């Protein structure tokens, strides 16, 4: 891993980093990844990834939810007619 990798990860994660912090994060990540790499030594044989996942369904009926749309809207940095307003994407 090098500084370029840290910069790339920060870009993917949408996080602006100072030069100094890139260096310290690189050192931290190398030490943490060095430790978690120990999973390489686990004997897993031919076991494949398995997820005991299942869907949780409910009837498609609308139920009353207690929440305050006013509090949500009040926290928008910018809004128009009750909608959140953001800068254009393209």
């Amino acid at each position, binding site marked *: 891993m090098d500084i370029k*990798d*840290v910069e790339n*990860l*920060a870009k*993917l*994660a*949408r*996080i*602006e*980093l100072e030069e100094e*912090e890139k260096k310290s*994060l690189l050192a*931290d*990540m190398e*030490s*943490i*990844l060095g*430790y*978690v*790499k*120990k*999973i*390489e030594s*686990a*004997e*897993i044989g031919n*076991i*494949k*990834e*398995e*997820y005991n996942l299942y869907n*949780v369904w*409910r009837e498609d009926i609308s*139920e009353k*939810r*207690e*929440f*305050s*749309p006013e*509090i*949500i809207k*009040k*926290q*928008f*940095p910018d809004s128009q007619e009750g909608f*959140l307003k*953001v*800068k*254009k*994407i393209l």
Partner: protein
Amino acid sequence: MIDLNSLTITSARKKLDAREFSAVDLAQAYLNEIKKKNGELNAYLEIYDDVLEQAKTADDLIAQGKSYPLLGIPLAIKDVILVRGKKVTASSKILENYFASYDATVIEKLKKQGAIFLGRTNIDEFAMGGSTENSAFGVTKNPHDTRRVAGGSSGGSIVAVASNLALGALGSDTGGSVREPAAFCGIVGMKPTYGRVSRSGLIAMGSSLDCIGPATKTVEDAEIIYNTIRGSDILDSTTISEETYPKPPLKKELIIGVPWDLVNGEGIDREVKENFAQTIKKFKTFGFNIKDISFKNLDMALAVYYIIMPAEASTNLSRFDGMRYGLHKDGKNLLEDYMLTRGLDFGKEVRRRILLGTYVLSVGYYDAYYGRAQIIRNMLKKEFTEAFKNVDLIATPTAPSVAWKIGEKSNPLSAYLADIFTITANIVGVPAISLPSGFIEVEGKKLPLGIQFMASHGAENLLFEAGKKFEALNN
């Protein structure tokens, strides 16, 4: 004067019902204590301005002859659980202006019983840490030695209970965040079975690991809060039903399995090992059967955790984009808005974990890290299922050391290693409890230690049973 030191939820209930004091008297006693001590300890980030009003409402209900286990009981709430209309910051600058628009399900359940919310308590930012040193709003200090950390991430909630600034508290536990500080401060902390308590309204860190749990002075008190907040919830599809796991019957003689090879391994303080061995001996004299057990992959749990947790955290925290939660930094375009908001207002540990999670999930590394970690997680789950065929409980120390000094662990990995005993319950999804197991003297201060018990999925009753027996016989 109400003697807060000896007061428990159980005894306060009796006294409130017998009109020995009112809910307003009780709330006022806690407010006075908070005023005296919170400046130094930094357990609470905010004391709600309607505490006495809440207490008045509880008194009205008591006057009508109503009685619920938590009616009029003052509680502290970890600053990751939403209370409608109140500020919730997760101890992060990115949420410093955020107000919750709804109640978390656990809050709704507590409100139905008429519990009093005193305020919100300090944590490691987004619950990432084991000391509250990662809070954007200052560290919470250990009441047994204020040079030391409280533990974390639910440090503020735990200190509130340990210092008589609340009768009980809610924390959240992703890798030990209720149990480890409970051990460091000498109180009871519990993590229920994964899915037992709804997480609707809990700010998420690692969604396959996060659990809300109680922190209290006694096991009975923990059971009272647990019984109030548990249950399936349409707003959280990961909640389980009463039938998901069979509740094991209570036996006369419970069998405790001890993974001695892990307990006696490297990185565990000698005093911790001694205290643990002595505590296990006590359990033996109290009529428990002790059995030596071992797991093939138990020593992998911490590494598995520090892959899965950052992966899930990086995904969960992508929602904080500066658009919907109060804080916004303006750049030249939308991308710059994101980069600036997230760069400036996430703390260092949060940035570290987001980057780590982004790395282990990225193309080319996914199979080697996240994929492999999931395989080992499932292997460990199967090992635990097997182990619980032969034992009722598994015991370890809660933490490998006493609370460390503030600033002592500057290397993030060294702080992560403190989670060695607690993370397994989250990886496997089983319930666990930390009980105070005595003190050791360090530099003239008596510092608490804890013993942790895990039980099989759905077997919280065994944790409470063992804990109550230990409390009764140990005193």
